[in-house]
């Protein structure tokens, strides 16, 4: 069928009409091959404008539509809907951006007009090679995979599990609870950590919609929001693996401590009685705070900000738990003297200040310091430091508790790889936008909760868990259809030679290899349409819908004509 292209140029009020000589554009394109009609209109995205377009398409029997107006990021969707309403395939449409790209970037009307002509011509040339694409719909799976059984993971699971939504909670250790298992008490209210975990464990056990996998790791994830295929594998016993399908994934893989051996000045690993905060929590939980020789310490130094310079960020929670440690110590060892070394005291929030005020007191020194060094002196530890004024000082202590920086768990990069998301500062999972989308990731349907996102206290972890749950509850409504990407890759069976180059570069596992035919095959439901495989394929066997070699080539050639 001969193509009849309708070209419509939007005045966008004064936005375009004042900066671009629209009549010149009309003149330049009206005789191009395939162009049936060229018109200008005051505001095409308005209700009137849309009605006008539908009428035009029907009246002229148009087969293709080109609109010269604003950015496709603004109104491509709008005009695709217009196409649908007028009965032509929404992909037989191309939008030339003459507003953001022409009208708004120069005061030279002549140049803006020239560029508008180029872009409109290129769009007309391109649209001639467009083909109809059909929308696909699949039923979204409402189930959720939660990776990590700490408090963030537990809370997410409890929020989400319901008779219409199954939750798979995967934990790599043998029990749920994460780091809280080692905490005797939880600041600022100093309730028992074990109570919290016990209660949560019980709720999980009772909930028949949560399937817990312990000693299990996630091996593979392919798919997208509403349809992720997941493979998990037991780390113990038989290494058996299991596959299931979920609609969303929450990463709650938590954190661990920076290894203080990498900052040798604190003597960790070399000197007795220099321990990390977590080791101290465990010691405290065991009921006896003691030195290596079994004696009770009389003087204790807590050193904050260990590794902060190396990591390049404040770990937010150390100051607060150091205060909690002081509470433990004061409670359990009478007359204990504690010196808390810090570089900046970080006690934000509505309850923390009060907690700090209540912790201060006799025998508790808060010392702002730098250049700390811990050495052995006789049977004690000697802490050399510079005080606020830069003067060199010494302090002797029986025990040193280090508060090292918080960093992501060791398998964070593997999880990032598996779920195709990126890692940001310090290796924590990167959010999509630090303000506007703080728990979403670059992979739609994958969310972050808790310390996997950055150092967080329990309160903040739970807040995030609930936020992630909210995201999922609103986007994955059971029974609602989802639309997988339409502009996906396709590999020609006759041209593919099976070198697997495409498969290697695909971030999503969307390409599999047909061993019988020795060719690569795109799973169109998983493909996200980036086109990486297409550029990687040397023989042109791979192509991507709506961004085909020919469509782009024609657009380029016309643009530089």
């Amino acid at each position, binding site marked *: 069928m001969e193509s009849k292209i309708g070209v419509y140029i939007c005045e966008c009020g004064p936005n375009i009409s004042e900066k671009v000589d629209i009549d010149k554009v009309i003149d330049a394109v009206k005789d191009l091959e395939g162009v049936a009609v060229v018109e200008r209109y005051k505001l095409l995205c308005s209700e009137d404008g849309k009605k006008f377009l539908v009428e035009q398409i029907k009246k002229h029997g148009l087969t293709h539509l080109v609109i010269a107006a604003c950015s496709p*990021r603004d109104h491509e969707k709008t005009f695709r809907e217009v196409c649908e309403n007028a009965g032509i395939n929404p992909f037989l449409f191309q939008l030339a951006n003459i507003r953001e*790209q022409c009208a708004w970037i120069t005061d030279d009307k002549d140049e803006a007009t020239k560029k508008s002509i180029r872009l409109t011509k290129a769009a007309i040339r391109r649209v001639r090679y467009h083909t109809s694409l059909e929308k696909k719909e699949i039923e979204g799976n409402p189930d959720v995979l939660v990776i990590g059984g700490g408090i963030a993971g537990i809370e997410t699971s409890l929020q989400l599990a319901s008779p219409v939504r199954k939750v798979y909670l995967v934990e790599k250790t043998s029990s749920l609870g994460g780091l809280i298992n080692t905490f005797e008490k939880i600041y600022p209210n100093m309730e028992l950590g074990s109570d919290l975990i016990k209660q949560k464990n019980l709720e999980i056990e009772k909930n028949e919609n949560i399937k817990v996998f312990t000693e299990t790791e996630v091996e593979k994830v392919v798919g997208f929001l509403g349809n992720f295929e997941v493979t998990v594998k037991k780390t113990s016993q038989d290494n058996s693996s299991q596959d299931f399908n979920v609609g969303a994934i929450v990463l709650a893989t938590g954190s661990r401590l920076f290894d203080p051996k990498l900052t040798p000045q604190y003597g960790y690993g070399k000197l007795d009685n220099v321990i990390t905060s977590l080791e101290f929590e465990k010691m405290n939980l065991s009921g006896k705070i003691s030195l290596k020789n079994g004696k009770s310490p009389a003087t204790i130094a807590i050193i904050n900000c260990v590794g902060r310079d190396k990591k390049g960020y404040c770990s937010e929670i150390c100051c607060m738990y150091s205060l909690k440690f002081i509470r433990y110590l004061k409670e359990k060892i009478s007359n204990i003297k504690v010196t808390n070394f810090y570089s900046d005291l970080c006690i934000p929030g509505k309850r923390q200040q009060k907690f700090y005020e209540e912790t201060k007191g006799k025998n508790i020194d808060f010392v702002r310091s730098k250049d700390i060094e811990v050495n052995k002196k006789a049977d004690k530890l000697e802490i050399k430091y510079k005080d606020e004024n830069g003067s060199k000082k010494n302090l002797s202590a029986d025990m040193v508790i280090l508060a090292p920086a918080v960093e992501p768990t060791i398998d964070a990069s593997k999880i990032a790889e598996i779920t*195709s998301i*990126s890692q940001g500062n310090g290796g924590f999972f990167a959010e999509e936008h630090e303000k506007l989308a703080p728990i979403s990731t670059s992979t739609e349907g994958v969310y972050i909760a808790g310390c996997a996102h950055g150092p967080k206290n329990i309160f903040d972890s739970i807040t995030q868990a609930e936020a992630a749950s909210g995201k999922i509850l609103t986007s994955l409504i059971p029974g609602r259809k989802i639309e997988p990407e339409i502009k996906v890759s396709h590999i020609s069976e006759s041209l593919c030679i099976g070198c697997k180059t495409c498969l290697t570069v695909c971030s999503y596992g969307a390409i599999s290899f047909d061993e019988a035919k020795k060719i690569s095959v795109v799973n169109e439901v998983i493909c996200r349409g980036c086109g990486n495989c297409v550029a990687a394929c040397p023989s042109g066997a791979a192509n991507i819908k709506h961004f085909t070699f020919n469509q782009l080539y024609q657009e380029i050639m016309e643009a530089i004509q």
Partner: protein
Amino acid sequence: MEKNKEYMPKIIAFLCNWCSYAGADLAGTSRLKYPPSILPIRVMCSSRVDPLFIIKAYLGGADGVLVAGCHPGDCHYDKGNYYTRRRFALLKKIFQDLDLEEDRLTLSWISASEGPKYAKVTTDFTEKVKKMGENSAKNKIFL
């Protein structure tokens, strides 16, 4: 060409939808001024940019080719731009080795919030290309 009017180069700019095209939009909505030499070709990811497109554009007479994508680590498709960078470097090296005016090819990372950077990169590149003069490939017959 009109008198007293500077020569306006023609630069093909491959812009990824999520970062660089959005950055270009931002430059526009912020009314930043930059030369209308840039002819944007929107792709979903910079990794769609087949090096053959760059060769085609150059031989077709484009005075410059800009490939722009999300910053490394921020790719909307996770890792696409790392491959883009390798492919681009390979081609650029070949252009270097063949003295094919490699300065006409450039790669830049421009995020959605970097409207000013987009305006700067395009302005600077246009200036550079202007100094090089028109791409003589567009008059060649025996390509």
